[in-house]
């Protein structure tokens, strides 16, 4: 294949399938690691299976341990057999996919290795028609990010070789440990890459969810007029997990629930709920509005942290009838650990729309069930016509956006129960995305990898977004650091968190939902 032309392809127009990315190579740093094996390669294979990858698509795995290309292919095949949602493996698809897999064995620090990488990429461009388009994926321990980026920059790999090609960088979470380290990391990346080239991943927020919420809010006329302080009493965002920390004690000890969940995922959810309508359904206009919402979070002074935050750590208990150990008994966890596995926060967004509406945000491990939901609870009616037994047990209107399990939306309304007497009941009207629209939502990693190849950064966090999200979190961390150590553990595994969290919301005359 020698001759290249840039003529348009008239056959492409109007086809009903999705857009296909340009041929490209993805270089995965940390290719022998857990993330590559469990998520990245299965997601890429699934994309190949569904015909969403371009012809010639190639992967270069970069890691330390010795492996030949064929061994790398064999081990990736095992990963696909084990973790892909497409079973059994399709031989034809696998063969053409595997032909594009290459392995480079080197330490991240080795300068010469990046020259070898450059040569390999050029060879792939020549042989497989990838046209100089590259994605560098940092699936490595976070402390390697800066080194790799620097080496790529020094080797001249961080910029496209010509005007028609592109180079992108995907950075995994966690992105920094606090505001200062996030700023430093951003500055370091931006010495070698442009902001438009950087894709900071937050795999929790799959495109479907964000788009579902945006569609609900902005494709309907009935919600937006009441989506504000005049009608909404408060918002509760819950990310409850029934699992513990699995095998990730080492990581979790350094992170804790606030960093692991709230800084990224939960503030993402909050910003999508709180944002103003974007001027267009495109990456930057959407992110502009999200950042504005995050920036409007009422500043937190470290000394008032007790008034807005509760933390907890689970002790032993039961999940689904099975006894489970407490956090401090988990492997690789300090027996006196002060790491929080539960947080509840009360945040305010100081703007015209949300002034004085509390956003209660809570997340925890080893809670009774796995559920992620956002509930907007509306105010009571201004004048109660129905009181006494007629209205006993009546709940205020609540719009619940459920993300998992069973992604869907439900609205609780009051209705009269049939019969001669007036008795009101709360009824739930709901719908589920999965069962209403005949299609399975694609896996979050598949969507994100494809978006990056297509140059769509809507779902990736921009520099200002990460920093805006770190600011309140850092203030809370500072406040905690100044306090005497908490008395942990303070909730049993399998319960809805510490009693303090119930008191915390009860002080405002409200209570947590039992989702």
């Amino acid at each position, binding site marked *: 294949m020698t001759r290249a032309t840039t003529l348009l*392809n008239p056959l492409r127009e109007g086809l*009903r*399938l999705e857009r*296909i990315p340009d041929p490209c190579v993805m270089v995965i740093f940390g290719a022998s690691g857990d993330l590559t094996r469990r998520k990245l390669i299965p997601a890429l294979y699934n994309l190949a299976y*569904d015909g969403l990858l371009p*012809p010639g698509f190639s992967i270069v795995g970069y890691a330390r341990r010795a492996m030949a290309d064929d061994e790398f292919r064999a081990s990736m095949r095992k990963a696909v057999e084990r973790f892909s949602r497409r079973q059994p493996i399709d031989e034809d698809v696998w063969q053409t996919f595997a032909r594009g897999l290459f392995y480079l064995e080197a330490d991240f620090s080795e300068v010469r290795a990046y020259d070898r990488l450059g040569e390999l990429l050029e060879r792939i461009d020549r042989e497989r028609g990838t*046209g100089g388009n590259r994605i560098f994926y940092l699936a490595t321990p976070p402390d390697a990010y800066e080194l790799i980026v620097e080496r790529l920059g020094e080797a001249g790999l961080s910029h496209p070789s010509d005007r028609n090609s592109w180079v992108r960088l995907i950075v995994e979470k966690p992105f920094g440990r606090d505001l200062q380290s996030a700023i430093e990391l951003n500055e370091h990346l931006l010495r070698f890459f442009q902001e438009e080239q950087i894709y900071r991943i937050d795999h929790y927020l799959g495109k479907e969810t964000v788009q579902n919420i945006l569609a609900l809010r902005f494709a309907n006329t009935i919600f937006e007029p009441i989506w504000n302080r005049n009608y909404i009493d408060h918002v509760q965002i819950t990310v409850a997990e029934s699992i513990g920390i699995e095998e990730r004690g080492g990581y979790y000890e350094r992170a804790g629930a606030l960093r692991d969940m709230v800084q990224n995922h939960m503030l993402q959810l909050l910003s999508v709920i709180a944002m103003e309508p974007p001027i267009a359904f495109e990456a930057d206009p959407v992110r502009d509005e999200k950042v504005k919402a995050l920036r409007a979070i009422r500043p937190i002074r470290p000394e008032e942290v007790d008034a807005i935050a509760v933390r907890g750590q689970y002790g032993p208990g039961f999940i689904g009838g099975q006894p489970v150990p407490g956090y401090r008994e988990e492997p690789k966890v300090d027996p006196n650990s002060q790491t929080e596995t539960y947080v509840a926060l009360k945040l305010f967004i100081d703007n015209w729309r949300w002034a004085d509406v509390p956003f209660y945000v809570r997340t925890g491990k080893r809670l009774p069930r796995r559920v992620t939901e956002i509930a907007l609870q509306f105010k009571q009616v201004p004048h109660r016509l129905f009181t006494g037994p007629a209205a006993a047990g009546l709940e205020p209107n609540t719009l619940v956006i459920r993300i998992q399990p069973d992604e869907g939306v439900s609205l609780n309304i009051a209705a009269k129960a049939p019969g001669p007497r007036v008795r009101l009941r709360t009824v739930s009207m*709901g719908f589920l995305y999965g*069962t209403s629209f005949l299609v399975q939502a694609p896996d979050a990693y598949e969507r994100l990898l494809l978006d990056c190849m297509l140059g769509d950064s809507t779902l990736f966090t921009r520099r200002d977004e990460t920093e805006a999200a770190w600011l309140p979190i850092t203030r809370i961390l500072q406040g905690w650091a100044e306090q005497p150590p908490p008395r942990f553990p303070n909730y049993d595994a399998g319960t809805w968190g510490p009693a303090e969290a119930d008191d915390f919301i009860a002080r405002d005359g409200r209570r947590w939902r039992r989702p």
Partner: protein
Amino acid sequence: MAELQTRRLLPRVEGTTIDVDAIERELADLWRSSGRFDARGVEVALSRTSVLTLFVYTIDSARAEQAKELIDQLSSEHPSRVVLLTAMDQKASGPEQPGAEVSIQCKLGVAERYAPCYEQITIGMPANALDLLPSLLIPLALPDLPSFLWWMGPPPLDDRRFLRVARAVDRVIVDSLDFTRPVHDLVLTRRLYNQLRGQDTVLSDLNWARITPWQEMTARIFDVPQSRWALDALTDVWVVSGRFEHWPANPSQALLYLGWMASRLGWEFDDAMSRPEGCCLCMKDAAGQRIEWNICFEPYAARLHGHLLSVRFQARQGGEQATFTIARGGLERGTVKLRAQNEQQVLLEYAFHHALFDLRRLLVRELQTLAADPLYEAALREAEGLASLVEQWFA
């Protein structure tokens, strides 16, 4: 997957027509009385989200069975109303002739706390019921939601009453794979398409959707910058379809596929000739270069009768030559494979699985689209022109 199911039979009272009000009444009653607990005694909320009404008309009971199976597979993702209208065999008239049956089917275990449900209405129709169909389609469609009519079996394209039936819904889905006289009926399909233009009904052909994987792979060959030249330098194309034993060859897919390419690339018809196993249509591209388009058939199992099996393009320009072969393969033949080569070497190999080789996914996709497909319209126009030229060889 467990299922909650409640059904009720509405016997037909001799001499009366089908009572739509009674059907709605029974359904409402079923919703009121149906159980709310699964086998473990756990309470589930029956969820009745409606996105569309699907009417399925089957011309015989064998097809009705096939339709039922398919609807059942769709049901966990398909919380709508399905109305199955089956033409009863003539000989089954009399007391055995069933009336209507209504049921509510809910899948348990799809979602944690909800059981998605759909309503199914089954109606036995007299054999020649074109006249009365609109009077059922209109009142039984859920208000404010799109309605689809999937015609299983050869549609009576030359019957003027079929137009009235089509106008009663938002989208009519036919299948040119099922046509009795495939080539001639393609001409009639175009006529119906034109008659419905400007109305609220869109006509679509499942068989057109079946060639999507082929179109996608074809487009992808020429997306690759290094092979783009070949699109303006095609000399020969072989399109091979399956043919089962003595069944008459069905070239609908091949003609629609050619119709698509011709309409996209501005090819014009030059001449046509019969070949032992098919025919050859000679086209001229925009630059006046001749392209021989061979429509061929290969003996194959009934399952793939009339389906494209492979397409081979040959291109030549100056000293350069290349061949591109697209073929089905893999498990269940659900994979499309591409191989590009020149005289010396293989240039590119590529494969993906295509969901649209599966009838269920094909149908789902049809149910997701409401707007007319301009590509289909253009391809059908070309295919119709070509069909009338080759009709003699496929009679």
